[in-house]
């Protein structure tokens, strides 16, 4: 865990990896995201928390190219990425995991990884080697040749994880990766995230799971009804009375 001084040092040194400037998104009558701005420094694990309907997933979707903000802009290492498609973003190093796990159901788990690797430009040999090592790391050896659709929910999540990391991305956007996951798999994923982070991998993590957020995330951003209501060190944010009230003060279903 980085302490606040280390984080300050990182932030002062370099341009943030991702900069979000005043993005907003409206769906029909609902202002899902309202002028949100924040930075994602290099090498951080940043948590994005907030009650249901606060707009966290929408922010993630805008960062990953699923849809474009109505106003505002996003930048990757200083370069504007606001209107790029998901596949363009993937090639620039922004990968994402979906809340409802998405794998290629009628291909074997191993083939899933191969395709993800080839799509990012690896050769057949490179993709095969990386896939094998990822399978080991994610403890999926015994199911690697089964159709991905036949895997359990947790195994599918691990597989999707693997697909994101066939080519180490600049930043990994994870949307509720721990939801409905077996504690053992949660351990595996947690360890994976931490070990990658120690090599400098940046993560943006949307999650409801407070214990994990406390363990993994250096800093947090809390949203409510489309706006940021608190940001900073995880411990500080989680103790912020505004945040506590947002969570206790009613569900936005």
């Amino acid at each position, binding site marked *: 865990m980085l302490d606040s001084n280390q984080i300050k040092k990182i932030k002062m040194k370099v341009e943030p990896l991702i900069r979000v400037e005043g993005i907003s998104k409206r769906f*029909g009558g609902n202002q899902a995201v309202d002028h949100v701005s924040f930075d994602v420094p290099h090498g951080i694990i940043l948590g994005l928390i907030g009650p249901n309907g606060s707009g966290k997933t929408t922010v993630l979707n805008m960062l990953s190219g699923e849809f474009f903000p109505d106003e505002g802009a996003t930048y990757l290492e200083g370069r504007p990425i606001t209107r790029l498609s998901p596949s363009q973003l993937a090639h620039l190093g922004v990968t994402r995991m979906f809340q409802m796990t998405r794998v290629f*159901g*009628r291909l074997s788990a191993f083939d899933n990884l191969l395709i993800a690797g080839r799509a990012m430009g690896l050769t057949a040999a490179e993709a095969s080697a990386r896939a094998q090592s990822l399978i080991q790391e994610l403890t999926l050896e015994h199911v690697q040749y089964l159709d991905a*659709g036949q895997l359990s929910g947790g195994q599918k999540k691990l597989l999707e994880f693997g697909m994101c990391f066939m080519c180490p991305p600049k930043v990994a956007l994870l949307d509720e990766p721990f939801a409905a996951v077996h504690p053992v798999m949660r351990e595996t994923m947690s360890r994976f995230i931490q070990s990658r982070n120690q090599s400098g991998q940046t993560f943006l993590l949307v999650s409801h799971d407070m214990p994990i957020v406390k363990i993994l995330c250096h800093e947090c951003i809390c949203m409510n009804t489309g706006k940021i209501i608190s940001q900073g060190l995880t411990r500080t944010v989680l103790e912020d009375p505004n945040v506590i009230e947002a969570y206790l003060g009613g569900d936005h279903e």
Partner: protein
Amino acid sequence: MPLFFDLTINGLIMGLFYALMAVGLAMIFGILRIVNFAHGEFFMVGAYAYALTAMKLGINPWFALILAAVSGAFLGVAIEKLLMRPLYQGYASWSIVKDEYAVVVTFALSLFLIHFVDKVIGPSPFMGPSLVSTQRIAIGPIMLNGQKIIAAGISISLLCGLALFIKKSLWGRQIQAVAQNRFGSSLAGIDPVKTTSIIFAISGMLAALSGALLAPIMNPAPDIGSFPALKSFIIVVLGGIGSIWGSMFAALLLGVSESFFAVYISYDYRDAFGLFILVAVLIFRPHGLAGQKGRGA
């Protein structure tokens, strides 16, 4: 001027029949998000049931109408139970591609029914008997076919009845619930399977009645349902998939515009007119005129 009224009235009447066919399709889409390619065959079954029972068995035409409705409902329930259920209940290896499964399976069903009827019964050599004896009625400056008027009247009452049923009755509200949220409604104690069955039954019944009402005017042939089905697809897309009111409105619109197109532009291509509209709408407004915005088309 009289021509204008004539075309409009006749167009509206045709539109009513289209509406009868299309609302069932809209309901199925609203609840299952699939299109039933065999929808035209309800129409055909209704037409045959009516013509055969009324002529061959000499049954009272009004009774034959009811028989046609029942056979349509029965066919609908059978389709749901035998073919559609795997999509949402139990294991189905096609469930990843449920849209495509529905396309293939209902397309095959359509071919099967058409050729089966063709083989076993053949084109019906007679038109169904008229429901009333008066052939021509004059309303103001317009001459109308008596059968058409009665049929239109029946259609209007059925459509109104359906609207009331959906809005007010217990079953109707369950249908609305399942259409909006399948999983949620099952938690609330509604049985989505039974509700789906009912919807298929209603869809089949209305389409069959549409066929039966038109049987006196057209010659029932095994593929008689193809064009009405195509028009229903067009209407459901135009009206916004899943929206019943949208479909009714679009049906009337199509009836009237076809009527004018046939006279003023081209009689031969009048059926293709609908196809052009369909392609145009699908390209430019996949959500139709009144439908809800879903995630993806």
